[in-house]
């Protein structure tokens, strides 16, 4: 049997209607705990961000358009990016974070000891430690569904096909075609490029404004990329230490 194809999400925000069915379906299927009622006063967004208890997050942005007091609404369902080069996975010291046969990235809850390193490593601020539980949690791309040929819960629930699930190659082609059909100078793909700082995202987006408007980093990188350089500097500093000790004691034999 050959290895399965790389699977992912293409989230086309141009057709998102902000219904939050994805957020609800994700919570229901994955048994993600509630984290209380919190009215943020940020348009219709009362979720705020991706975190241990929100694996889909619908952002609502109200923007003025033109000079006549008109406005437009941007809505976008954010999710774990399932990076090609995933910093969370690289730095995990227990092997709890792993890559699946679908090239997605998941946390094994029975292994995670809550060290928190992945949380500082993620350049998107996705993965998070759950209060009262102590372990790190994030989107699994419904690993327990896709193995059985089902679509992830959020993609299944999405009424407008803003969230599309499938083989990543196919999704990239579909996204390119959609971008051309849309013919909007502000529209752009985000995270689709295998040459970017994380080697391309397994979950990428079509956005209608700059990424930072949606709370996304404009040019994220996997910092483990710089590890060889960092170890070299540390090695140099370590040698400096050893030399300093040797010099301090040299010629001072009692």
């Amino acid at each position, binding site marked *: 049997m050959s290895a399965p194809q790389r699977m992912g999400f293409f989230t086309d925000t141009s057709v998102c209607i902000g219904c939050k069915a994805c957020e609800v379906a994700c919570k229901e299927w994955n048994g993600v705990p509630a984290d209380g009622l919190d009215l943020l006063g*940020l348009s219709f967004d009362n979720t*705020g*961000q991706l975190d241990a208890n929100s694996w889909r997050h619908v*952002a609502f942005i109200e923007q003025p358009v033109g000079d006549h007091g008109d406005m437009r609404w941007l809505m976008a369902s954010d999710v774990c990016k399932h990076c090609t080069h995933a*910093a969370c996975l*690289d*730095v*995990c*010291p*227990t*092997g709890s974070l792993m890559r699946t046969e679908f090239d997605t990235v998941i946390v094994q809850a029975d*292994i*995670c*000891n*809550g*060290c*928190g*390193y992945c*949380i*500082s*490593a*993620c350049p*998107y*601020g996705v*993965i998070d430690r759950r209060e009262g539980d*102590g372990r*790190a949690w994030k989107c699994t791309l419904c690993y327990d569904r896709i193995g059985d040929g089902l679509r992830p819960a959020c993609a299944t629930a999405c009424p407008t096909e803003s969230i599309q699930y499938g083989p990543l190659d196919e999704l990239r082609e579909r996204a390119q075609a959609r971008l051309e059909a849309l013919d909007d100078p502000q529209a752009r793909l985000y995270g689709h490029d295998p040459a970017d700082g994380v080697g391309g995202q397994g979950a990428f987006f079509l956005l209608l*404004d*700059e990424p*930072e*408007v949606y*709370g*996304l*980093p*404009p*040019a*994220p990188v996997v*910092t*483990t990329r*710089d*590890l060889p*350089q*960092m*170890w070299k*500097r*540390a*090695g140099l*500093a*370590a040698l400096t*230490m*050893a030399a*300093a*000790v*040797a*010099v*301090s*004691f040299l010629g*001072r*034999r*009692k």
Partner: protein
Amino acid sequence: MSDSYYGRPILKAPAWRHDIPAYLFTGGLAAGSALLAAGADLTGRPRTRRAARLAALGALGASTYFLINDLGRPERFHHMLRVAKPTSPMSVGTWLLTAFGGAAGLAATAEIRPRRWNGPAGRLTDAAGRAAGLGAAALAPGLATYTAVLIADTAVPSWHEARADLPFAFAGSALASGAAVGLIGAPPSEGGPARALAVTGVALEVAATHRIETGLGLLSEPYRTGKAARLLHAARALNLAGAAGALLGRRSRVVSALSGAALLAGSLATRFGIYEAGVASTKDPKYVVEPQRGSA
């Protein structure tokens, strides 16, 4: 001013509590002490050796406590030992600390052997202590500097950007705190090397920290504002006072001990200051957006 989503942070602030900057200090103290102990052992400074070996073990114990206490699931600390992962500085550090712990533990045990063992058993214990102490010293520079890689290998903007200088700041800080153990725990007659190390350590620590505070453009700002700036100012004052005291107080046990205390406090403040600056840089999205846009 760059765009953002209601000014909300893009990154998660580190989930770590104050155990982690405390460990940065105690890990450096353990490493610095082990180096001082080995030097003292080889040059015939028994009281420095004894103080430094015991300090290394004490600092190691504190480090272990802080590291386990900070876990979300402390009872699973041993899951760190199920893999060895070169891409994870924390995994590298776990193995380094484990090996160092064995060696430093044995060296300290040799130090507390009963005085009446002066036959072959005593000589064997001393030889084992020397071998273990040299082993711990060989691992110590790695132990003192891997933590810089650990925090630099994150998306935390002001840590990652400081990746070239952090290892030198931590190396200097570890040397100065190791020297402090010699200044506090041994008589001034043995203290020449500790005084030299205090000055070298402080010079490294202060110079590297200065580069971090001024050389990173927008990402130096978190080091120069708020709590981080207050801690780093205090650290510099304490370190310079400690180094000056170490040099000038060479005949006085009291001045030497006070200098040692200042150096320890300075090293602690450096670690907390650097830690706080990193945390602050995750909270304002401008520290993520502007450097990535190339406009910082």
